């Protein structure tokens, strides 16, 4: 594939966020149904079937596409809810479905051959051979790449495959091999892969102790934040733990991914689309990030250096990073 203008794929956890993303300049919206068939199954979040129909209508009126994420793995013996989600996405006129499970990909290919199939990051397809398999066997049109690849590795993959690639551009920094991370399962019995939740809210506890904000996930203390210190999500991969008599972030600090300053490199690497993470975030966040990235993507397409410096206030831990795209530690 060759470089060109990047498509901006934006999150929506509620109909209000969908309208905010469309109005802020999204090219496409991704969302999920209000159940465990998608990897953001948080209380009060996501779309009913009627809300999806209205959302597709609103987005369509502004020329914006809607993608439905059905990217958890069906439970053994009960594929019904996942298949119903695919059927309903097709019936309601979604532009594409984002899938991870090979059984569900096969179901979609056989029953809805005209419905565009994207491969979710949850499938963790991180090399050309894996991607080719999904394309050849299931007619996948786009692959969402895991957040563990460098720009050079992405370029090499794009040289080797014919399929579109989509990369994460802003928001949560998942440092694990997605779809295979069991940290949340270990602590709570629930995971993003099967239940659609990493660090389920009902297992999280915050308390003020000795002037510090203490966050716990299940029976594990994840972090202690000093007065005034920016806080982060209570995920195990971003916890601060004691090892060798020292408290430190063993895996990753609370930080948000931000690729705005490497957009030209991603274009050169042949990337088709940018994904903004944050279906669990509010509509104010969605509007702010989407409009900033709209300007950045348009600037990059004109050959200018993009800038999204004004997004610092909404980042996790008050920090931004280009993550694995520029692996300084190698």
């Amino acid at each position, binding site marked *: 594939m060759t470089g060109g203008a990047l498509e901006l794929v934006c999150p929506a*956890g*509620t*109909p*209000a*966020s969908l309208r905010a993303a469309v109005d802020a300049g999204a090219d496409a919206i991704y969302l999920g149904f209000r159940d465990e068939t998608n990897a953001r199954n*948080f*209380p*009060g*979040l996501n779309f009913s079937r009627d809300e999806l129909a209205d959302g597709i209508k609103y987005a369509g009126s502004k020329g914006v596409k809607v993608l439905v994420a059905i990217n958890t793995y069906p439970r053994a013996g009960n594929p019904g809810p996942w298949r119903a989600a695919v059927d309903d996405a097709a019936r309601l006129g979604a532009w594409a479905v984002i899938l991870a499970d090979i059984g569900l990909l096969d179901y979609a290919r056989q029953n809805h051959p005209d419905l565009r199939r994207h491969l979710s990051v949850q499938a963790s397809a991180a090399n050309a051979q894996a991607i080719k398999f999904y394309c050849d066997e299931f007619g996948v049109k786009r692959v969402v790449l895991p957040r563990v690849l460098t720009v050079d590795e992405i370029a090499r993959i794009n040289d080797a495959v014919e399929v579109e690639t989509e990369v994460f551009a802003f928001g949560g920094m998942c440092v694990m091999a997605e779809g295979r991370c069991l940290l949340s399962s270990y602590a709570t019995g629930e995971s993003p892969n099967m239940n659609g939740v990493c660090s*389920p*809210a*009902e297992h*999280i*506890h*915050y*308390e*003020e102790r000795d002037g510090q*904000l203490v966050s716990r996930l299940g029976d594990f203390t994840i972090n202690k*934040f000093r*007065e*005034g*210190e*920016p*806080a*982060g*999500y209570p995920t195990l991969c971003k916890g601060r733990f004691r090892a060798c008599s020292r408290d430190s972030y063993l895996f990753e600090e*609370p930080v948000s991914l931000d690729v705005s300053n490497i957009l030209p490199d991603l274009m050169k690497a042949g990337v088709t689309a940018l994904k903004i993470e944050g279906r*669990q*975030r*509010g*509509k*104010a*966040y969605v509007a*702010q990030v989407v409009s900033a990235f709209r300007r950045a993507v348009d600037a990059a397409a004109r050959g200018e250096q993009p800038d999204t410096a004004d997004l610092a*206030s*909404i*980042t*996790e*831990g*008050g920090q931004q990073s280009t993550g694995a795209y520029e692996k300084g530690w190698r």
Partner: protein
Amino acid sequence: MSQPGQRAPALSPVLLLGFALRPAPKPALQAAASLAMAALLRGHRSVFERLEGLANRDFLIDPVDLPFRFHLSAALPSPRLRILGEDEEPAAPVAATIKGSLPALIDLLEGRVDGDALFFSRALAVEGDMGAVVALRNAVDGADIALTEDLLRPLGPFGGPARGLLRAGGMLYRRAERDLETLRAALVAPVQRRCDSQEAKLRDLDETVANMPTRRRERQS
């Protein structure tokens, strides 16, 4: 409002308003809260419907710059917002407590700020059942709440003058906010200068320690 040992709220027009409201009779405040709740229910029933799966739909909302708190019972068909005095406990167990300045809480209610960003910056504090907090946040964020408009809508054509008054009030508020910030900066300036000086000394000390040969550092530690 802050108690001994708790973090003090920022100097703001709301904090001053809180002092002014201290002598206000509770029934008058309760009437205003009930009016706001009725307007919310009328215009945004979906907020309460989205919470129907929760076992406990009671929340304690604590605006840290006001001398009272709110006990929100969000269960349909009759959600209620009760005013609680500073030392008064909710009549029923709450799922969670949400603390922040009144302007931050209103911004959150009207979807002008992102709840996670407020939490990361420590402008918002939450305790209790996070599932319930997340559900409430998502339900509120999913509705297009505009508190002033929701309250004035029943007034129909008579709402116009009230809107004008509120606009003028808003301008006065923003002016008072700027003036108070100037006052605050002037009051803390001497202390701030001392803090800056001590911080610079600490930086110098850090640098000195970092530049010491490793063995000497180990011997001294």
